[in-house]
């Protein structure tokens, strides 16, 4: 008897269960939806099963406003002086359980520590905010969209946003420009895109049984505003040039002499050494033009590009002002360059940061 009754009870329970089963929700429960809890009790009195008793309780899920703004990646954006459309990248996410708009604004650090360890020294100009419309991850003015707000962000949706600006031509190596992207939650329009929605007001003065609005910012400041910092760091090339001359032969050496003198008819080898300071950017397309001194005559096809220089830093490495070029070895160089209108021209190409490249050429003393 008893087992049979139990069986009946569990069968009716199972029927109910199948009706109530549903897949788990992927997102946070949508604002305004009701949560109803049902309970069913089966029991016996005097060994006789009684009618099931049920009870339920319902409440409404409120609107939780939360958004995050986070730098995409964790490194400074390396830029060069005069770079246009230099960009930093952020990810803006709607962590609310409702559709919202997010107003965007970009601001610049005014001195102080930048987020990646440097000290803010410069500002970028022409600051604009773009959304990564083509989802490429890289800013491209042809495909991305200039925005002031993100329209109709669905719950849990993330969009990539760029702060785009220009670097001044006067920026020097190591300059840092800190920028901040701030997002402010605004009312959405049920998914219909259009103008930016109104400001969101949290429910105050006592909760209601209906859908309330609650700021639940992850940053602990309950205002529906989130921000993050990023920065640009200028990597400039710092080129210095040194020049030396060495008498390499005379057309009538004094019999028995082993030294050469800078006398008319003697040949002089000029060496120009171009150094790019360490810690900066590589300098590319480096070209040399050197007017031939008066009273000298260029020796045809004597330009050699490449080789090694010996530089005496006078005990102060890092200070190029007192450096002296003491020797040049062009044995590994190749012939090149040109001479015209009294000027020697040669293209070195790339001078990497922390390296020195040389060119040499010869002239005779008139």
């Amino acid at each position, binding site marked *: *008897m*008893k087992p049979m009754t139990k069986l009946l009870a569990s069968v009716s329970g199972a029927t109910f269960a199948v009706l*109530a089963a549903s897949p788990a929700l992927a997102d946070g429960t949508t604002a305004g939806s009701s949560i109803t809890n*049902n309970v069913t009790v089966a029991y016996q*009195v005097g060994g006789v099963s*009684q009618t099931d008793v049920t009870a339920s309780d319902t409440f409404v*899920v409120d609107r939780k406003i939360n958004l995050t703004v986070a730098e995409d990646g964790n490194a400074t954006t390396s830029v060069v002086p005069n770079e246009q459309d230099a960009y930093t990248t952020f990810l803006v996410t709607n962590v609310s359980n409702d559709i919202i708009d997010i107003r965007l604004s970009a601001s610049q650090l005014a001195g102080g520590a930048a987020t990646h360890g440097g000290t803010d020294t410069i500002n970028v100009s022409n600051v604009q905010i773009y959304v990564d419309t083509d989802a490429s991850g890289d800013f491209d003015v042809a495909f991305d969209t200039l925005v002031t707000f993100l329209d109709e962000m669905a719950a849990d949706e993330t969009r990539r946003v760029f702060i785009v600006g220009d670097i001044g031509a006067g920026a020097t190596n190591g300059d840092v420009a800190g920028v901040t992207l701030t997002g402010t939650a605004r009312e959405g329009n049920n998914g219909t895109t259009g103008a930016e929605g109104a400001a969101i007001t949290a429910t105050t003065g006592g909760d209601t049984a209906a859908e309330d609005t609650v700021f639940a910012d992850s940053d602990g400041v309950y205002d529906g505003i989130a921000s993050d910092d990023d920065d640009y760091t200028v990597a400039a090339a710092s080129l210095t040039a040194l020049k030396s001359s060495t008498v390499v032969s005379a057309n009538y050496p004094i019999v028995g002499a082993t030294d050469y003198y800078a006398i008319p008819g003697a040949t002089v080898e000029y060496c120009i050494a171009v150094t790019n300071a360490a810690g900066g950017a590589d300098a590319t397309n480096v070209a040399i033009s050197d007017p031939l001194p008066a009273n000298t005559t260029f020796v045809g096809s004597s330009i050699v590009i490449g080789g090694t220089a010996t530089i005496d830093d006078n005990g102060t490495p890092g200070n190029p002002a007192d450096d002296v070029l003491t020797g040049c070895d062009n044995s590994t160089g190749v012939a090149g360059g040109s001479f015209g209108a009294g000027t020697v021209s040669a293209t070195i190409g790339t001078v990497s940061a922390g390296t020195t490249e040389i060119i040499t050429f010869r002239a005779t003393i008139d």
Partner: protein
Amino acid sequence: MKFLISLFALLAPAAALANQVELSSEVFVERNVEQADGTVTVTHTEPSQVVPGDSLVFVLTYRNSSAEPVANFTATNPMPDAVAYRDTDSPGAEFSVDGGTVFGLLADLIVTEEDGTERPARADDVTHIRWTLAEPIAGNGSGQLTFRGVVR
């Protein structure tokens, strides 16, 4: 067969009786509130303000309103879709992770993923919670069953 018939014969008059068990289901929001002195107290409030991530306490209160003992008391509570089960303080709970077909201890239940692989069931998987009271409820006796969940 005879056995079954006699069973239904007994069921029929029972349905005519008024309910002897009174039941109520309540939900509270459980929050840890830091006091001015730094201590943290747990508060339970009416669910007028609820957002995803909030902890909920479900309280089922039952009372035997008759003088007769109530036996084989079984309370079955499907989890609301938007609530993930967390734990219960009431002993004797059994769980289902398949919509109420199979009940057992959570540690004994297996979930079959869509790709066919099986894994132990987790609290998140619970679809139903059920208590079967081993002892009858005495006349005019009452009790509570509670469990916790979190708003998905």
